[in-house]
């Protein structure tokens, strides 16, 4: 039986509504709705797509939705999946953007946001810790990390430049290392 495009859109909307606080939350949701309730995908496929989404630039939750949607109904399925995942947050953000300035006039809210700004630093630091644990684990990765950080702190370089330079050096490094092994 062919899965309807509208059905794909609806399911991803439903997942988008429940997606609070970051990309990794999407995995259990996809498992529940696509694997367990509907049997549209197998669990192994989902794990494959998750690994793949991390190899693609961009937002993990968006990437994995595109992969699942593509599996269900090719390109149109992928389009429905990404639209579905975006729509709830898009609407929520537009509403909040409209009311935030009037809310911020209230003193209690101002104090709360003052505290939340400090929370954001804590969140960024925790993310740095997690990224460090997942990525900085060899001589080469230490080198990339500290050279990038040094450049960023001392010169006005754009983030995109840092990413390009590190991608090129990683590619060269793997080429040379590969030749040594062979």
């Amino acid at each position, binding site marked *: 039986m062919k899965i309807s495009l509208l059905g794909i859109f609806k399911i991803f909307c439903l997942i988008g509504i429940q997606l609070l606080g970051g990309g990794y939350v999407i995995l259990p949701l996809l498992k529940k709705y696509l694997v367990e309730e509907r049997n549209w995908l197998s669990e192994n496929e989902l794990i494959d797509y998750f690994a793949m989404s991390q190899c693609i630039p961009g937002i993990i939750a968006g990437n994995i939705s595109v992969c699942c949607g593509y599996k269900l109904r090719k390109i149109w399925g992928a389009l429905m999946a990404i639209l579905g995942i975006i729509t709830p947050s898009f609407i929520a953000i537009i509403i909040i953007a409209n009311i935030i300035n009037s809310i911020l006039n209230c003193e209690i809210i101002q104090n709360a946001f003052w*505290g939340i700004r400090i929370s954001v630093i804590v969140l960024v630091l925790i993310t740095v810790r997690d990224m460090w644990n997942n990525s900085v684990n060899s001589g080469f990765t230490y080198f*990339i990390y500290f050279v990038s950080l040094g450049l960023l702190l001392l010169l006005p370089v754009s983030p995109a430049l840092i990413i390009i330079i590190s991608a090129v050096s990683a590619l060269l490094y793997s080429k040379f290392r590969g030749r040594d092994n062979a």
Partner: protein
Amino acid sequence: MLKLYFLLFYEFFKIGIFAVGGGYAALPFLYYIQEKYNWFSLDELTNMIAVSNVTPGPIGINMATYTGYTTLGIIGSVISTAAVVSVPFIIAVIFMKLLSKYKSCNFINDIFNGLRPASCALLTSIAIKLIYTTLSEQNSTVHFPLKFDNLAIILFIILIIPFSFMRKNPLLVILFGAIGGIILKPLF
């Protein structure tokens, strides 16, 4: 005006390509946009990050929508959101087409081996910048002697100690920060 739309698309398109490793990887790019174009203030950006954490949807996409909306209204939000997802969308579709042929992606893994630490370094530099601008009473340029906002440092220490031992839980961190702000700020 048309140029502004184009710039908005271009900057968020870059985030779509270069932000590696989850929603927070978009932060260094947003700070870069703030400094370069001044479309929004530093405080607005930090509020925006807080709001993105407590609304549904991927944080990176939320921030694109919010920035686009505050800069150029509803059309701006559509442009920036589309820009940020377009490249990953195309790449993901190509990957899916090739998946049956190539099961593993060694070449991509090699590149990511260098991208992830660079992305981590980008976020570290943002953390340093945030610590400086939020915990001191100055803006982004460094002036000596450093003047620190003692109250902000107290709340920072209260928050960082328990949460550095825990798994990342954005909602809880934001909730405690908000409560801390409401309680501490009127006391001093």
